[in-house]
């Protein structure tokens, strides 16, 4: 799971610059590069923007605009785990909005926020492709189906006890 991968110990600037250089020759390199950085650092830190811009011959505004446009990219590291709740129609048909309300209560936070203990960042998602087996969650890189309040609480207990 990407969320449990350790943060590299030092010199993130050098590492980001190296990643940027490694992608520089790729046609349309920006999204692959942003994915590579976020996979490693769990976010696109602000200090990465000028390094990316320099390597790909873009303006910082262009890089910033792309990071801001796509829901997947984040500028700050999330909690230890990311839980996405599907809000799309197929999951709504089997109670997704009730799960959403339950999750907000259980975590004490809303979307795009992190529980006070730092264990879980909650996000909305529109469809995980598990539409015959909803309500659906994505917990880091795993999809979970047929989630009810009890199942959510079990998952949450596992995440809170996990590193």
């Amino acid at each position, binding site marked *: 799971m990407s969320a449990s991968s350790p943060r590299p110990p030092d010199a993130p600037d050098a590492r980001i610059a190296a990643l940027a250089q490694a992608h520089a020759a790729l046609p*349309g390199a920006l*999204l692959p590069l942003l*994915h590579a950085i976020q996979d490693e650092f769990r976010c696109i830190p602000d200090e990465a923007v000028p390094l990316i811009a320099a390597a790909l011959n873009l303006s910082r505004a262009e890089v910033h605009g792309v990071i801001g446009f796509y829901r997947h990219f984040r500028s700050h590291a999330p909690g230890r785990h990311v839980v996405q709740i599907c809000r799309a129609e*197929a999951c709504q048909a089997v109670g997704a909005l009730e799960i959403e309300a339950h999750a907000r209560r259980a975590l004490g936070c809303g979307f795009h926020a992190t529980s006070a203990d730092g264990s879980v960042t909650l996000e909305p998602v529109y469809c995980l*492709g598990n*539409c*015959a*087996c909803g309500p659906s969650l994505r917990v880091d890189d795993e999809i979970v189906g047929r989630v009810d309040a009890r199942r959510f609480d079990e998952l949450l207990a596992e995440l809170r006890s996990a590193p």
Partner: protein
Amino acid sequence: MSRVFVSLDTSALALGAERVAQAIAAEAKQRGAAVEIVRNGSRGLFWLEPLVEVEAGGQRLAYGPVAPRDVASLFEAGFLAGGAHALALGPTQDIAYLARQERLTFARVGLTDPLSLDDYRAHGGWRGLENALALAPAAIVREVTDSGLRGRGGAAFPAGTKWETVRGAGAKQKYIVCNADEGDSGTFSDRMLMEGDPFCLIEGMAIAGLAVGATQGYIYLRSEYPQAARILAAAIAKAREAGWLGADVGGSGRAFDIELRLGAGAYICGEETALLESLEGRRGIVRAKPPLPALAGLFGRPTAVNNVMTLAAVPLILERGAAYYRDYGMGRSRGTLPFQLAGNIRHGGLVEKAFGVTLNELLHDFGGGTLSGRPIRAVQVGGPLGAWIPPAQFDVPLDYERYGEIGAMLGHGGIVVFDDGVDMLRMARHAMEFCAEESCGKCTPCRIGSTRGVEVLDRVAANRDREAQLALLDSLCDTLLHGSACALGGMTPYPVLSALRHFPEDFGIGSQDHAP
């Protein structure tokens, strides 16, 4: 050695297939049973997942849904030899839900190991590509044109016509772009195929490349599909290693390669020009058309942008010939559509049928009614931009033209079922909210109109000047319909107005008072 099949499909895993596979491995080890566990795609019978199959007596026998705690009793019952058990379902291919389908594109999905080149070859793989290699590009395109295949992403544009445009465009570099940004709620056929039979998509793209003269393909896959990403990446590497991709496709001396690219959580990137912008490394803002992507697409070069289902239908057409595919279907809708039964449905899953099947058959004969046991009240066909269909229209044949006549669309074949607890005003509001959330911001009707739409519907819900608000909603939808740059703004009125038309009581009006 007994062969046992446990799916690696996302939905199977979401229901616990991984733990079931582990339990079977552990139990087999403890009992000293020689078991090979094959991780196959899903048969698409999701209410039976995790489905476990065994090879016994020359056929595949199914058990399901299996929980880890059932595994010991399955071994006790001798399931490896097809022993009787409360979860036994008999031969998989005889399960009525499967037996009544017409699986052309999904013929191999669930049957084979998705990453086994031997399995793929043994089940007819690469024959379409081999036939294509013996044909001139124009002849490949003609075969696709004659099959009647239309774009399965939703727009239903004739695939052969698009390819002919790209083929005829004079350029040294052309591209094949596979749109795997399957963002519509209620759809998972692309995902199932990419996870369950990825070589089929690769073969279809290679044929497309030969047909139009493109040497490079990209698969733009949404980031919400991590399992599909893992499997596709592995499949592309294997196909390249085996010589089906690269500088010398199948020993022909002709080049075609594929790169997998991930989206980043933007629904609009399913729109082909926004997708191209994203592939080029920019925000997913839709482009004005013309120029058509077929003439000036990726990096300004001629590009065939096709949905996963379109490309995955191509190997069979080249293997069996255009007529074989065209003989399925009705009217101008030829071949099959992999329908996806989703939402509040008892037997949810994938049903590939020839065009012309009705919702009544899909929802009742296949789907078994709602999961909740309540009556079906409304069904959304074709994703979040598709119209709501009331039970009175469940007998209309699922065909591109017939659905167009009732103000609806088939889209990507997603069918989302709601029972009588649904509030259709809330669903109409959700359509506007979704449009506002996902708008790229390029055009005013979509960017601003969607937010105004949420506000108008909130005033309707609060019964504040309801008649005037509904008139305003009509006008607003008219602007979205005719003034938007792409289908996101242009089709958001479909779910909104169809909800109002078919379920006026949820908007606080009698059915005869309002007919938009």
